[in-house]
């Protein structure tokens, strides 16, 4: 059970890193999705600022959650964000069904649909599992391990950014992505 909770925590953190990195690669596109979800008109620059803040927050939270596993309150924050994903999925499904959510930037063409709500629920469930009190010994890591995780996590987010850029550019050139 403890291993399952650890794995769930890691998966959610990695997902945040990838989603944030990919969104940063296409802030304009994600800003359009943000504007779609906000029920009032807002200036283009505000949409971009919100989009940038959301993407940066996802990366920061992913990095922190992964490299500081013993910090219990981070799991609660991640669970809160995951619940936010569920709310956005339900709202998007209710009012903007079929439109792209740009949840993973150009890495995916996922839309607001039933499957999207199911995915968001699964993420929230994993985040909830990670809040289970884990034995201190399992999540206590030393400075070198923390640095190693932080570095690899940053590299993963950078790779997500680059992959999203490459896919976005390829689609713009008429080369169909995967």
């Amino acid at each position, binding site marked *: 059970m403890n*291993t399952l909770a*650890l*794995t769930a925590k*890691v*998966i959610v*953190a*990695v997902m945040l*890193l*990838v989603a944030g990195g990919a969104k940063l690669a*296409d802030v*304009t*596109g994600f*800003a*359009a999705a943000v*504007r*779609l979800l906000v029920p009032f*008109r807002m200036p*283009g620059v505000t*949409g971009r600022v919100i989009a940038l803040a959301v993407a940066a927050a996802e990366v920061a939270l992913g990095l922190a959650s*992964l490299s500081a*596993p013993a910090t219990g309150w981070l799991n609660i924050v991640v669970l809160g964000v995951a619940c936010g994903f569920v709310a956005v999925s339900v709202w998007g499904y209710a009012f*903007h069904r079929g*439109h792209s959510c740009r949840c993973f930037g150009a*890495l995916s063409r996922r839309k607001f649909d039933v499957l999207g709500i199911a995915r968001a629920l699964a993420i929230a469930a994993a985040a909830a599992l990670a809040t289970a009190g884990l034995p201190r010994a*399992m*999540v*206590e*890591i030393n400075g070198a*391990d923390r640095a*190693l*995780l932080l570095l*690899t*996590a940053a*590299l*993963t987010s950078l*790779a*997500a950014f*680059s*992959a999203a850029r*490459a*896919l*976005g550019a*390829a*689609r*713009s*050139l*008429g*080369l*169909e*992505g*995967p």
Partner: protein
Amino acid sequence: MRVPEYVAIAQWALLLTLGVLVTLMFRQLGRQLGVLKSSPAAGPTVGAPAAGFEYAQVDTGAREFFEPDGGRAALLVFADPTCPACEELVAVLNQAHADGGLAEVRPLILISEPASYLQISEPFRETPLPVGRLVTDSTRQAYEVSATPLLVAVDGRGVIRAAGPATRPADIAAFVRASVIPQPDGATLPVLPATSVPPGQDMVRATTGEERGHDR
């Protein structure tokens, strides 16, 4: 030295994710360099009759119907405000319109994204050209729009004369020429993707329909 369980799980998860992302990038790089087989260029078959379709005017929401054989050549521009290459294209189209380069055709920008997205892109927001929002996916399927931007030149008889992506003023001029110059029946004028045309060469070339869709 024993690796803590958490570190092992995290490193494996990160390694797998990195592997997937690097594979994605490798595939895209391969496609762009022409090493790997890419999908054919987007667009309908040149020489085929253009399909009529319904769209909604973005400013009024009123439903309109595009008649391909309205006696006047048309230039259909499938583009979306959140696509950088589309923004570039619409800016070029706006300039071409200001210079009178589109006077001989009926230009129509067709978006699939919500009309509110137009506000985030200056070229789309400022365009004097008519913009319509597609109301069904069947139009994109009929014109085989698998990537944007995609231009489709339709002559006055409703026959598709050119199709493909474009970004430069010369490309737009070539599309306009293709749609207004009378073609003998059966002749086709496929358009090479703008990225594969050497500088200084006209992007429209007369050839057979079979050549269309070759890998770059």
